[in-house]
């Protein structure tokens, strides 16, 4: 190995090390931003190293003007688009953007394998296997993530169920595997690989199509893991360790998040992919509650209760984000704090449309992160809480989850019912995503404040201000 090559390899190693350190710094909100910058620096070094290497003509690289122009034109267009969307996207739309970046990342990985196969149509067994896996996983991720982004954007609000979808995807998967096997076995046919690509693209659509509503965090996490794996496979195809390492890191991250999200919803990943009750957005389910007497509360009484509490925990759910009520929520917390109330937020792992989404939305509304508490941390605090204010959260507060034999059984919940009193801001008694009554609402300690999340919180802020002033 020449000095030049050694230098390039070390620069690539440095980049990979930066990725690991960057992820490690994500362990705390105080160092997370620096972590991302370290990771970005590693990326700049890794890309600069490979650019220098091909410009130098090492490893058989033979750049000419045409190749440079096409490469730089593509990169220019992509960078411009990426920069623009990253700067302008609303935080509520983060799940869509993450899905979109997932799609293009997986797509690029698949394209690399296709282009390599086009150049070297007789790969060895190992490379052929990696090529097929890259194309299949990348293809599924590409269309699957694009579709997920469209769904999250609300373009496909009605969940689409195709009759016999499971049979169709089964047949498609079998055909994909057969075609892939043929390519690995040495089929010297670009047409076979092309068929595998098309099958993978259709498979991505069919898989994501019936999944909806509250299952989206699991789907996004899973597609994230897929993209990572596809990139690692591209690393195998090109024999490039940087790609393999980075892809494996993302694959690990996506897998962990997928597991966490599925556990937090008490569902298996397989049952979500199979598309069970993952239909609709909860609000559409119109079953009325009939558990017991419900106590309604007027805005002034609710404000009074909150203002004279010593400890309040706010429990935000997707309803809060959907109503864009984060700012009113933070305002209420500030008014209460100015009155000496200790306010914190209890955040369930699946609050929002992707893992940790609610935290970002509250951070955007200037809620300090030390007020945002995770489920395990906050659950023991409810006993010492005077008022738990539930805004737009439903199933994750249902005490029925502690008993066996119902739709939410075994789901980890926030112990809201342990608080001394509970106020729930909700438009109606409609049941949540799981479609069962929330026993919290009929608890004698609970008062229902029937209002839209945004308007209800604004009314509470106004009422609390008159009490505080």
């Amino acid at each position, binding site marked *: 190995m020449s000095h030049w090559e050694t230098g390039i390899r070390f620069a690539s190693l440095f980049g990979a090390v930066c990725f690991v350190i960057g992820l490690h710094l994500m362990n705390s909100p105080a160092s997370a*931003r620096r972590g*991302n910058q370290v990771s970005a620096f590693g*990326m700049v070094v890794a890309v600069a190293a490979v650019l220098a290497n091909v410009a130098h003509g090492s490893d058989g690289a033979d750049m000419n003007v045409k190749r440079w122009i096409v490469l730089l034109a593509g*990169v220019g267009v992509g960078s411009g688009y990426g920069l623009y969307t*990253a700067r302008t996207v609303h935080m509520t739309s*983060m799940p869509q953007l993450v899905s979109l970046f997932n799609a293009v990342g997986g797509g690029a990985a698949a394209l690399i394998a296709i282009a390599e196969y086009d150049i070297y149509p007789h790969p060895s067994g190992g490379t052929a296997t990696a090529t097929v896996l890259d194309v299949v996983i990348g293809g599924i991720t590409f269309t699957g993530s694009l579709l997920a982004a469209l769904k999250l954007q609300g373009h496909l609000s009605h969940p689409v169920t195709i009759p016999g979808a499971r049979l169709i995807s089964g047949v498609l998967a079998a055909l994909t595997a057969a075609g892939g096997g043929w390519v690995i076995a040495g089929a010297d046919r670009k047409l076979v690989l092309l068929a595998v690509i098309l099958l993978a693209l259709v498979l991505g659509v069919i898989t994501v199509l019936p999944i909806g509503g509250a299952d989206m965090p699991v789907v996004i996490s899973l597609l994230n893991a897929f993209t990572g794996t596809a990139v690692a496979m591209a690393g195998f195809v090109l024999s*490039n360790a*940087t790609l393999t390492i980075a892809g494996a890191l993302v694959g690990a991250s996506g897998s962990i998040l997928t597991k966490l999200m599925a556990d937090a919803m008490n569902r298996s990943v397989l049952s979500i992919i199979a598309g069970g009750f993952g239909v609709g957005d909860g609000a559409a389910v119109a079953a009325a509650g009939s558990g017991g007497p419900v106590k309604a509360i007027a805005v002034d009484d609710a404000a009074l209760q909150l203002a004279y509490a010593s400890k309040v925990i706010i429990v935000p759910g997707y309803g809060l984000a959907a109503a864009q009520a984060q700012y009113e929520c933070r305002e209420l917390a500030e008014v209460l704090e100015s009155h000496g109330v200790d306010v914190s937020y209890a*955040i369930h792992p699946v609050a929002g449309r992707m893992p940790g989404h609610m935290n970002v939305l509250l951070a955007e509304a200037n809620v300090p992160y030390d007020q945002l508490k995770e489920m395990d941390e906050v659950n023991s605090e409810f006993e010492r809480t005077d008022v738990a204010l539930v805004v737009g959260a439903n199933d994750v507060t249902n005490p029925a989850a502690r008993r066996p034999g119902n739709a939410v059984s075994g789901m980890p919940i926030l112990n809201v019912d342990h608080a001394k009193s509970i106020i729930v801001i909700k438009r109606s008694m409609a049941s949540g995503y799981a479609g069962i009554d929330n026993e919290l609402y009929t608890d004698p300690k609970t008062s229902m404040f029937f209002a839209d999340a945004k308007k209800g919180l604004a009314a509470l802020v106004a009422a609390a201000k008159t009490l505080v002033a």
Partner: protein
Amino acid sequence: MTGSFVGDMTIFVLALLVGFEVISKVPATLHTPLMSGANSIHGVVLVGVVILSSETHGVLGYILLFVAGAFAAANVVGGYVVTDRMLQMFKRRPVVEKADHP
């Protein structure tokens, strides 16, 4: 090529284990930035696109190169910028607590 395949596999498995180890410690508060940050890391596929560019030929090859380049660059640039935007919003409670209303 089997030797290099086993070598790649070794790196892959070890990196996977490092990933599990490092990421399982990230708090739920940061899961969205983590996923977005991990997203930017798989933008490293851009390195693959550059390698590809040095051997590509033919109309199909150039089309694939252009599209792959655009995809990878959007992924890497957009990913890092949006993650940074998100993370700068995470702030600690101000050191000086606000005084009570007069």
